């Protein structure tokens, strides 16, 4: 049998797992591994400028491709820097394997140089973790790590590797396992047939149905199944922030995003529904508003691969645990069979009335009605930037985002027709995610348009990655919605703190972003007038092989609407604009 050192085993296993990129940063505890990668590994390594960026880039690579992201960091500060990114991936169930260095085994527990209890620190934000105790265990551990990260409800897995387990001179037999069997881990393969039938009947009896789908549909590769089901029944569909693109955003049956900043029509439809089909969504508090007032008249069918998601916050009337893809397939078969027996289902008259009601809501305060935002024709409104971006990219770009108002505007106004195109930190809401995410996506799809929608606050949290863009030639476009504020914070301060803007402005300290990006060798543009917006946007995307930073000055007073009334509001209680609320 082939004899390899621990470092070589890692290099080889990464090849055998068909990893496309390793995102990482070297340091003392991982030098043996880096040397092994350097000497003999076909998988390219991307050197970021901060370990947090390595995790975000790997995470976004995974979101865009559906394949696991791979990260390599050193012990101590390398590992702790990675934690925010691991938590970000964990909250959004993104498959990722993180190799983190550790001090030598005999030093563990002695507060050695760059020692951190990485297993302890990462424990609440990983799906699972391993510490290597014997080098011979490495192939099995790596195989398991990839298996656990990518199956069931996906998530990040940490492998903590003491330096002495990767010594080049200590070689052990290497055989990479073909498969994994773990008695304590076997994700469910199929939904319960009886429950699925029950759900099918409930759906066919619905008079005011809504399909509420989340990130699980994208992770579970079930967009087609979801679309077929919705089309078969002609039911309205709303997506969560994480689910955008799972159902085509430009389709007429699509009600838009729901939740705190969801579309009026989506939130109204949810509140008045009699049957809700929740698919791969988890009734997050940013969706439900006050749980006790959530959708009072609705029977709820909930499909999820993770049993803990079901009836966690909102009770499910028909729980179905299983992979969304096969469950939806099975459900469609059931529905077709039931309809063969009784073609009058679902009640066409009721559905007609329901659609009429929904269209009334759409006409009243829908996102696409004229009065959603007011433009003076001169200053740029944030919504117009996203509309312009949509036009310039033909609606077909990968859009990564940071966190804040700009994120919500992007989610609302860029109509995602395909899954995996909208890449944002939904669960953790991590500012600084956008730029490294764009790098990860661009490396996965070098020919695609990749844009990072950001704000001047968020972009500065990982702006050093402009240098990584230079090194690896990742010509992403950075769309900075510049309002000179931590805009989302300011919005809350306007609405709940009588406009006291406590520490949400940078005063006059912002850098000249054009000069800044030029220093990194990129192109900077400043756009201040609406008349220039579309032209500049086109110009930016025409520069195919350059990173372009568009510093777009927008109306700093604009708020994101609709916005749920809180506390104690229900789904239907929304601020429609600064002066009007629904109830």
């Amino acid at each position, binding site marked *: 049998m082939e004899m390899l050192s621990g470092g070589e085993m890692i290099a080889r296993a990464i090849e055998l797992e068909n990893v496309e990129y390793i995102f990482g940063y070297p340091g003392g505890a991982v030098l043996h591994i880096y040397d092994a990668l350097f000497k003999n590994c076909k998988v390219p390594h991307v050197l970021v400028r901060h370990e947090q960026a390595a995790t975000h880039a790997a995470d976004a690579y995974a979101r865009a491709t559906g394949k696991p992201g791979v990260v390599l960091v050193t012990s101590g500060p390398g590992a702790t820097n990675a934690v925010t990114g691991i938590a970000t991936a964990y909250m959004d169930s993104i498959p990722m394997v993180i190799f983190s260095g550790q001090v030598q085994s005999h030093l563990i527990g002695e507060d050695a140089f760059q020692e951190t209890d990485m297993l302890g620190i990462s424990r*609440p934000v990983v*799906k699972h973790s391993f*510490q290597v105790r014997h080098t011979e265990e490495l192939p099995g551990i790596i195989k398991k790590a990839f298996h656990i990260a990518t199956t069931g409800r996906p998530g990040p897995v940490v492998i903590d590797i003491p330096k002495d387990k990767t010594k080049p001179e200590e070689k052990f037999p290497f055989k990479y396992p073909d498969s994994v069997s773990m008695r304590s881990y076997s994700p469910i393969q199929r939904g319960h047939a009886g429950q699925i039938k029950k759900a099918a009947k409930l759906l066919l009896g619905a008079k005011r149905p809504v399909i509420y789908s989340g990130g699980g549909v994208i992770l579970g590769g079930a967009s087609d199944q979801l679309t077929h089901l919705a089309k078969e029944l002609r039911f309205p569909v709303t997506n969560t922030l994480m689910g955008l693109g799972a159902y085509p955003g430009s389709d007429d049956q699509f009600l838009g995003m729901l939740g705190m900043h969801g579309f009026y029509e989506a939130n109204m439809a949810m509140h008045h529904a009699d049957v809700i089909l929740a698919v791969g969504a988890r009734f997050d508090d940013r969706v439900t508003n006050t749980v006790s007032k959530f959708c009072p008249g609705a029977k709820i069918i909930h499909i999820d691969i993770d*049993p803990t998601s079901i009836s966690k916050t909102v009770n499910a009337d028909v729980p179905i645990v299983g992979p969304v893809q096969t469950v939806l397939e099975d459900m469609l078969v059931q529905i077709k069979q039931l309809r063969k027996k009784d073609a009058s289902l679902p009640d066409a008259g009721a559905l007609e009335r329901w659609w009429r009601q929904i269209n009334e809501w759409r006409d009243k305060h829908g996102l696409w009605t004229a009065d959603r935002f007011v433009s003076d024709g001169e200053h740029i409104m944030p919504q117009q930037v996203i509309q312009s971006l949509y036009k310039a990219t033909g609606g077909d770009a990968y859009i990564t985002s940071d966190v804040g108002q700009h994120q919500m505007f992007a989610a609302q106004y860029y109509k995602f027709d395909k899954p995996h195109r909208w890449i944002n930190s939904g669960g953790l809401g991590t500012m600084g995610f956008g730029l490294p995410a764009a790098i990860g996506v661009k490396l996965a799809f070098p020919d695609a348009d990749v844009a990072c929608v950001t704000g001047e606050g968020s972009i500065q949290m990982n702006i050093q990655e402009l240098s990584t863009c230079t090194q690896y030639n990742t010509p992403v476009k950075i769309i900075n919605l510049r309002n000179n504020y931590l805009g989302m914070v300011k919005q809350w301060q306007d609405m709940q703190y009588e406009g006291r803007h406590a520490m949400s402005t940078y005063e006059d300290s912002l850098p000249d972003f054009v000069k800044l990006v030029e220093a990194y060798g990129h192109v900077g543009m400043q756009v201040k007038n609406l008349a220039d917006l579309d032209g500049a946007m086109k110009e930016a995307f025409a520069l195919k092989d350059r990173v372009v930073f568009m510093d777009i000055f927008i109306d700093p007073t604009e708020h994101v609407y609709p916005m749920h009334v809180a506390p104690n509001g229900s789904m239907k209680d929304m601020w429609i604009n600064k002066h009007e609320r629904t109830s």
Partner: protein
Amino acid sequence: MRRIISILMENEPGALSRVVGLFSQRGYNIDTLNVAATEDPTLSRLTVTTKGDDRVIEQITKQLNKLVDVVKLVDLSEGAHVERDLMLVKVRAEGEVRDEIRRVTEIFRGQIVDVGPQVFTIQLTGAAEKLDAFIAALEEGAILEVVRSGVVGISRGDKVLRL
């Protein structure tokens, strides 16, 4: 309501901290906790008693099941079961009270496992309430030290928790 959750898990380093971490991370409380290897050295058995309404208990069991190290679990309080707690109590035992303590110990079917001129160490096993009752029965101020194992339990009849 009080529940006894009994867990079969991989006897791996870190497994226990994952279980304990889950409880603190998600705000569930632990009343007692007991863990030791089983007849199969690759498995350990962990018993935890906790309180919560049905919804909380359902989440606790689901969340525990989701831990990769957890192989199987059962909520013993859902069915007929035997539960035991082991207690060692060191009490002040001087003069006349020595007889009194001996008598109470006998009533509770305890054993005096260590005897000194001024102290007894009493061992008692039983359901948690019995041990509580014993403590209540001892003279106030007599108790010098109490140590309890935490609840362990097993289902009655032929129901078993194993691979």
